[in-house]
């Protein structure tokens, strides 16, 4: 049953990969960032299906990015595959550690605590003057198994790398959604007590989701750091997290692909808004978000529609 979706996905992936050299460079760069961020959004989708919205996902994003940047600064490791995996692993470890605390929280308290955690990292980074404080620092251009492309070629190579990471992540996350742990997202959101009494720990289910979303966010951050070639503490600030939540809403939690489409659409809309109305692009973005929530719930995927039905039924 997933075969048709997988086929379409694989075709889209192949077309994007093959068509990239034909695209204008600015669009390749924009899509690189958009798809790197889409990995973070994918992680948020995993949490959101359980009804959890972290306002501090930038914590893992920044950790992934800084891991790459620090490797470039203090070690001779330059291979993009190694550094991206390192970024993802570092973020995963941090997610595992903070997960012991965070996994016990729900709803707004989950959001607030995750926000506090990311803001602590932000504070630490700002205090670290050797790393350039708020100015951040340069990220070394990586090599691809020893190959060091320059200029336009490097952008293309990075785009393919991001695309490859996205494809792997999409396949794995889709698999995860079909697994027991992944499919229990809606049961957990619906009725934690029942899940516990069926014999599985809700906290551990959520802990796992946190680790997966942390790894994805770390990978996204690592790729973004390679693409932008610069890291700064702003990556850990709460408005960065807010931006990811924003895209998640636009995308909806209905499917894996929505994260990618949503992220790309967001970057394009933002870029066009900045282009057309440099003084009022936040207004456009805010309106887009508001209109989506108010009038396009169907466009947000199946979870949202279900959430709404549930609420209508239980509303006073």
């Amino acid at each position, binding site marked *: 049953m997933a075969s048709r979706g997988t086929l379409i996905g694989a075709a889209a992936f192949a077309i994007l990969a093959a068509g990239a050299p034909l695209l204008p460079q600015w669009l390749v760069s924009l899509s690189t960032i958009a798809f790197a961020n889409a990995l973070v959004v994918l992680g948020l989708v995993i949490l959101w299906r359980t009804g959890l919205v972290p306002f501090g996902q930038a914590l893992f994003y920044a950790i992934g990015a800084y891991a790459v940047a620090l490797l470039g600064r203090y070690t001779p490791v330059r291979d993009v595959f190694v550094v991206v995996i390192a970024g993802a692993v570092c973020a995963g470890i941090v997610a595992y550690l903070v997960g012991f605390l965070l996994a016990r929280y729900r709803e707004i308290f989950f959001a607030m605590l995750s926000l506090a955690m990311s803001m602590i990292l932000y504070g630490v980074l700002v205090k670290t003057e050797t790393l350039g404080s708020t100015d951040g620092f340069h990220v070394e251009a990586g090599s691809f198994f020893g190959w060091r492309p320059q200029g336009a070629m490097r952008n293309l190579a990075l785009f393919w790398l991001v695309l490859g990471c996205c494809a792997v992540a999409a396949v794995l996350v889709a698999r*995860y959604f*079909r*697994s*027991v*742990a*992944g*499919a*229990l997202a*809606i*049961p957990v959101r*619906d*009725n934690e*007590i*029942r*899940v*516990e*009494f*069926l*014999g*599985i*720990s809700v906290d*551990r*289910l959520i*802990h*796992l989701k946190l680790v997966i979303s942390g790894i994805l966010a770390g990978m996204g951050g690592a790729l973004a750091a390679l693409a932008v070639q610069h890291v700064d503490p702003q990556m850990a600030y709460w408005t960065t997290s807010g931006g990811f939540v924003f895209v998640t809403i636009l995308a909806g939690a209905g499917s894996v692909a929505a994260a990618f489409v949503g992220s790309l659409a967001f970057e394009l809309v933002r870029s066009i808004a900045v282009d057309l109305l440099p003084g009022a692009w936040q207004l456009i973005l805010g309106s887009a978000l508001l209109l989506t929530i108010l009038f396009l719930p169907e466009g947000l995927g199946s979870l949202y529609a*279900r959430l709404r*039905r*549930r609420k209508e*039924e239980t509303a006073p």
Partner: protein
Amino acid sequence: MSAILSVRDLEKTFGSVVAARDISLDVPAQQTVGIIGANGAGKTTFVNMITGHLSPSKGSILFEGNDITGLPSRTITRLGISRSFQVAQVFPSLTVTENMWAAAAIARGRDSIIARALTPLDTPEAKTEADAAMELFQITRYRDARAVTLPQGVRKLLDIAMAVAGSPRVLLLDEPTSGISIEEKFGLMDVVMSALKTRRITVLFVEHDMEIVGRFADRVLAFYDGTVIADERPETVLANPRVQTFISGTKPAGEGAVHA
């Protein structure tokens, strides 16, 4: 033969309030035990302690000879004690089939979260088991309905069917007929009890309706003021004057209301 479930000197206090005290009993395998008592008498507290929702303040619980006192509910479930709820606990936004799949899948897997993330939810075994359970509890015709839309009785059946999905040896039913009309009560209990009999499950059920207790229970525990005041065959317990005074209400207060 030895008891499948043994309780010794169980006590639960909330601050200065004593919710349950001095409860000691043994339940042999495949017995069906009815639990009666007025509201606040300690029935649900008792069920909650056995199933790990509450941790006892004192005393111990043995299941198949192992001490399970204070274990988390999910561990107790995995060991073989399941429960249903006074208000049916199902997943409202899923269909009946999906509810059963979730229950069957959770029950089957190993207790490792990583393993859970690698096993698909909809394995053929889980599907077969879900189908069988729906058949057994006669809810197959609702299989594609969302749980939130189900009539109360079906929702109760689904709740119990999900509890049975893990193949428990002991099942605790917390007021299986609450919220069900009088006409439907017996039908529901017939379905439930015959299903549980075929699975050879030891049952403890909390019930207000003395008629149902009389008909389905092999043995009755009467709770009053946090403890068990009678523990015998149904007809004996129901004839007990204190039970009649405090619980079943067939005898006015005053007669036999001598506090122990």
